[in-house]
């Protein structure tokens, strides 16, 4: 292997360790279990979304609706519990159903209506941003809120639901690992195993690389594509559940950064280990990378707007790694 090959393969990992080393020296208290957990927690929701969008990237598509699916799920969970006064299980089921249905519609639009993936999911994004505000006429949802008809909503977030966002498991140190981090790790392992070790994952890569070849090898290409969007939708709705549980209310102003952060994580993942293709491990590393960067900058008291800038720089550099240096495209 030449130096260039090494740079492509290990460049991003080296950069990640360099970043950790830098913050360890420059920012007090960066190296501690609490700090590590905080990083994980901050990336958990975007990480889950990023894993979903990875599935659509694998089949050569893209899903811009994930951010709004997540916020829609959050609003739906709040509505179901606060206004309809249902329990946590019902709320979770409703959220997952929303994710699956949106994914099916996205897939149908793209596969059968032949709408280009970016446009179909962009349209779906706008649709959901509006739809999620219709039931409450644009209000955020919290216990005791006044409904549009003047009545007061009496339901509340169930304790079991809030635990999804607030409970912490003991891990050597008491109350260390939040539920959201466990969910992220479980989903990451699941999607990684699915993509790398099952025939369905393999076929999805084939569909993304050469659709016609996959079809002539007997794969139901349309079904694979639709499933990719369903996976993406469900993962996004899981992200929304975690968000609702963390906030304890349905906040119409939250979740603005979810889409961009998740897409950045998935695209940074292309550059990890020179994969030059969407992959679950890379996506997880990408999410971690973004999380470490933001946590480190926060601890060094960098203002919030520089964080967006730095995120953008990292994404652009990662894309250069993937597309220019390795000389390979998405195919």
């Amino acid at each position: 292997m030449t130096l260039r090959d090494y740079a492509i393969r290990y460049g991003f990992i080296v950069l990640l360790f360099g970043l950790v080393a830098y913050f360890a020296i420059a920012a007090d208290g960066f190296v501690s279990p609490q700090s590590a957990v905080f990083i994980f927690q901050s990336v958990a929701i975007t990480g889950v979304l990023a894993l979903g969008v990875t599935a659509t990237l694998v089949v050569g598509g893209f899903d811009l609706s994930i951010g709004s699916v997540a916020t829609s799920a959050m609003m739906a969970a709040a509505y179901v519990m606060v206004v309809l006064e249902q329990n946590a299980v019902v709320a979770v089921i409703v959220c997952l159903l929303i994710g699956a249905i949106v994914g099916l519609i996205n897939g149908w639009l793209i596969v059968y209506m032949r709408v280009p993936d970016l446009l179909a999911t962009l349209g779906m994004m706008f649709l959901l941003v509006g739809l999620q505000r219709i039931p409450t006429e644009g209000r955020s949802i919290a216990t005791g809120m006044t409904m549009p008809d003047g009545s007061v909503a009496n339901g509340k977030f169930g304790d079991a639901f809030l635990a999804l966002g607030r409970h912490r498991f003991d891990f050597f140190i008491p109350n260390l690992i939040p539920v959201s981090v466990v969910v992220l790790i479980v989903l990451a392992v699941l999607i990684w195993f699915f993509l790398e070790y099952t025939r369905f994952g393999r076929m999805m890569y084939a569909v993304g690389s050469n659709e016609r070849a996959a079809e002539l090898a007997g794969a139901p290409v349309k079904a694979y594509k639709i499933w990719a969007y369903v996976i993406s939708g469900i993962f996004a709705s899981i992200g929304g559940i975690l968000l609702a549980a963390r906030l304890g209310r349905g906040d119409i102003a939250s979740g603005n950064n979810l889409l961009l952060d998740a897409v950045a994580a998935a695209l940074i993942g292309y550059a990890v280990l020179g994969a030059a293709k969407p992959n679950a491990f890379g996506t997880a590393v990408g999410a971690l990378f973004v999380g470490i960067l933001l946590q480190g900058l926060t601890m060094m008291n960098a203002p919030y707007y520089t964080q967006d800038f730095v995120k953008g720089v990292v994404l652009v550099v990662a894309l250069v790694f993937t597309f220019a240096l390795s000389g390979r495209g998405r195919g």
Partner: protein
Amino acid sequence: MVGNAVFRVEGLRKSFGRNEVLGGISLELHSGEVTVLMGANGAGKSTLVKIVSGVYERGGGTMTLAEQNFAPSTPAEAIRAGVVTVHQNINDGVVADLDVATNLTLDRLSGKGVPTLFNPARVRREAKAVADRMGLAIDLKARVNDLSLADRQMVAIARALAHQPKVLILDEPTSSLSSAEADRLFALVDRLREQGVAILYISHRMSDIRRLADRIVSMRDGIISGAFDTKPLDYEGAVNAMLGRKIHLDQIVVRSSAKPVLTVEGLRIAQGAKPISLTLGDGEVVAVTGLVGVGKTALAETLFGVRKPLAGTMTMNGIPYAPRSAGDAIAAGVFLVAKDRASSGIVGGFNIERNVSLPFLKRMSNLGVLKRRLERATARRQIEELGIVCRSEKDEMSALSGGNQQKVMVARWMAQDATLFILDEPFQGVDISARRDIAAKLRASAHGRATLLFVTELDEALETADRILVMSEHTIVGEHRNADVDLDRLLAEVAGGPLHSAA
């Protein structure tokens, strides 16, 4: 023949790397004449066209246009000098979202001395002049997107003719037209011929060629293999020069089969085509040959379930066979090595191992989880079997030569036992030694299945098959046992002439 040639090519050469594509082409085009250029895929036709139209630089030789040296370095230069090419892909020649008038005058919208402001009235006036000269009856305000393919083709040609060329090159202009639409094109070509334009017409369609040709030039392997200009034109001779038999050493022992595997009855694969009936036997290698565009790929895809027949039935080993997808066909043991491996075979993101296992992942997994050890062992065995030259089964496909890539495609489908093994143009872009390897492997392993090859080159059929079927106009028009083949009759069938004319 009319006096001197207006356009002359002498000793034209072109190589890509070590690969010589044109080995000294000499060609003359005369005013008011249609010269048809015939040649199989890879003969070098498109390279020739691209050099003449200024896309490629030539490797050697001279070109003269009206006694002047002609050496265009860009397509625009060639057009200005008076050599205009209408490329095969119609949509390259028109801008779909603009109206007809703008398309016809598009080339006047840029360059020196053009007014900055766009004047619709002037554009329409100029366009009308162009359209009238051509006898083009199309609404100039219509958007090109809304036109039929034939009308778009007319617009593309009219646009080319707005330059008043001395030489017009038409590259397979009828390949996507119906026969009625083609008639309009022929009328236009006749008109241009009368106006004294020298036309180089590239086509595979014998009906076009019979209708238009004043002269025929055949190309093969980068050289002119035959030129025919005495009337009546020797169409069969031209086909023979294009596809005909090179001296080859491989003699095959022809087998015949007693046990039918696939029986096809009354299969119609195109509107207006005669039905196809055929039987393929166990252990037999059958080659279907015919010119490009006669329905070989359509037949292959119909047998493989990715194209629906208009009528007819198929029976496999006594059981009705009506696949509705590639998946159905594969499950029934029908495998297809598709034409054009780059677009329909190779998965670029996968290495050799994963390309080989692609269609059989279900059989190589347990509850959906892949058996990676089995996958690797299969790839290694197949690499060994077909003699694929590579470092390991982990090599990327892009690292392999064309011949080895094709071997991987064949290896993919030979990894499991087929009932019917179909290969569509398996020797395209494959060097001679890889071609021999693949052919030998096909024959050696033929027992226990029926093997069906679709090839344009006659040599390939003669080298590999026990039986040769000839296709023309979406049906089968002839059958030959590959021992003492009556080559004259075979060529007559390929050329679509009356049967037994040469016998």
